[in-house]
């Protein structure tokens, strides 16, 4: 039985999703089952490897975006009674590019080495975080952006919706449609439940934004700048409505508070503190 479920989120870019699927198939098939969730793609743009298709009217029109998209996939796995079969979930957006080599085993080994890590994010050579990490190093952060996360099931079980989780609430808060600060919310929930979030340079990623910048029409999504504007506007509203926070800095300090407290409980892990 494979320990890892890799879930690829796709919207109307079958060639891109197929390439990513085949990359995992060629390099990591022994370690992971691979699923593709179609986030409201049109029928002609479904990946040939797709597993689930969110095809109700609203999803076809607006997509699910990453919070609802991964929630949907996870809820399908639960429904199919497969959720407990996996120890780890690799949540991957379709515009993420990896090195052409096996990576899942490396990520699993890292999770085994760091039993209090709930979320592990590969690092990008274009991220400033790399200056805090040496080559092949993993450290714990209070802030990490969701691009592709390797998530421990036990962590998920501690923070996920309890009753009949759906695409709106399985892991991410689906009310936060475009996901601004949805990642930091999960990090906070993690530290509050004794689970750290780590970034590792043992696996490297690159987010290929050219799809969003040049193929937004094909993806049936908002143009890049318009999307960023909406991400911020809707995200700020969500932050205010849910937490009464008026600034991204508030939720950041909130996260830092739980992060510092985590190391008070686990001083032996301080060597992984940034």
């Amino acid at each position, binding site marked *: 039985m494979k320990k890892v479920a890799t879930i690829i989120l796709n919207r109307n870019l079958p060639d891109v999703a197929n390439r990513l699927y085949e990359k995992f198939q060629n390099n990591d098939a022994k370690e992971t089952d691979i699923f593709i969730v179609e986030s409201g793609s049109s029928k002609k743009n479904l990946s040939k490897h797709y597993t689930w298709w969110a095809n109700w009217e609203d999803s076809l029109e607006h997509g699910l975006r990453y919070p609802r998209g991964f929630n949907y996939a996870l809820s399908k796995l639960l429904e199919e009674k497969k959720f407990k079969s996996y120890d780890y979930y690799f949540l991957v957006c379709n515009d993420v590019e990896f090195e052409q080599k096996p990576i899942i085993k490396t990520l699993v080994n890292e999770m085994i080495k760091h039993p209090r890590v709930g979320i592990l994010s590969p690092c990008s050579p274009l991220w*400033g975080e790399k200056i805090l990490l040496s080559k092949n190093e993993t450290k714990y952060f209070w*802030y990490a952006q969701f691009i592709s996360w390797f998530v421990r099931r036990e962590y998920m079980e501690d923070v996920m919706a309890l009753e009949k989780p759906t695409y709106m609430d399985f892991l991410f808060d689906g009310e936060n449609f475009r996901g601004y600060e949805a990642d930091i919310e999960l990090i906070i929930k993690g530290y509050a439940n004794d689970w750290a979030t780590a970034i590792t340079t043992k696996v490297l990623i690159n987010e290929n934004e050219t799809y969003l910048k040049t193929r937004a029409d094909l993806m049936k999504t908002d143009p890049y700048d318009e999307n960023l504007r909406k991400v911020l506007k809707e995200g700020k509203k969500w932050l205010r409505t849910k937490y009464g926070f008026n600034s991204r*800095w508030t939720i950041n300090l909130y996260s830092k508070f739980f992060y510092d407290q985590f190391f008070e409980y686990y001083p032996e892990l301080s060597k992984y503190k940034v």
Partner: protein
Amino acid sequence: MIQRKLESFMARRRCTLLGVGPMSKNCVDVTIELANNYKIPLMLIASRRQIDSARFDGGYVNNWTTEKYAKYVIDRDKRGMTILARDHGGPWQNTNEKDQNMSLRQAMASAKKSFEDDIKSGFEIIHIDPSIDIHGSLTVDDILERACELLDYCCEIAKREKKEIIFEIGTEEQSGGTNTMEEFEYSLNEVFKFCKKNKIQNPSFIVVQTGTKVMEMRNIGSFNSPFRIVNELPAEIQIPKVIELCNKYNIFMKEHNTDYLSDEALKWHPKFGIHSANVAPEYGLAETQGLVELLEANNMKKLVEKFLKISFDSKKWEKWMLPNTKATDRERALIAGHYVFSKPEVIEIKKKAQIRLKNISIDEYLKAKISDSIMRYLRNFRLLNLV
């Protein structure tokens, strides 16, 4: 005394101290007025290009020499709330040192003379920044060696002149966006070791990277950006990290390039515990825009055009341009405006305009504009008595 003054002010209320770039005579006047009216310590942070010793023929701000500028400020600063500070003192920080292609020894000697005149004139905060070398790139150790030599020299002068000064070290030039935490801690350790060995005071401020960077008329750094900037550490990580390090070493952090940040970002400065922040071009722009608006509103288009041409032709806007900039000529001229305020042609333009504007004092109008701009920082930095 200066150290105690700043510490006791900050102990009374959690705030961020403000360093104001003396962009013009009006800007200096407004700073003195606000510092005295509100009884808040405001630092006037003069770069060597703005104001330098008579030996170097002064600077572009009001054609002041260090000596005349210091006397001007001290005479008007009735309550002693305005702090004279040198910003980015060091070799090749004065244009003459570059133009004359000075060698290292010549440039260091020249920088020492400039510091000596600062101290003699009553400057109380000295920022030592030897990060420029026109003859090649520098390692962190090169910079530290030069910084320590200058630190030692300034202490000697201060002792001889019986002046009390405090120091700021570091630069925003080290690595462009963000200096690494290791480099930051290493530099602090080395300087503190040097100070202990030579029995001189530790620096009081260190320049830290918080994700601020001014280009054109905005702040393009990560502090102001809710989205990731390539190759920059997110401000969400950078800021708490540097604050932790400053607190560990018991040194005040000084943010440079704070201009044009949003009110929201500024309000977070005291909350984060950012001890002080420098703002300069924004005040120059406020005055320039004020002048242009006033003349345009009073149908003095020819004078405006003449002013904008002088400013544009100065090319002082060049270093502020983004790659692939879309800035218009007018915007470029506005950015460079404060550099040409002291040119005789611009003084003449203002004189002509003043003759026509019978009921408005141009300088009072411009001072009000600068004051508004500075007040935004005083409010957000919790420097005003809010109770």
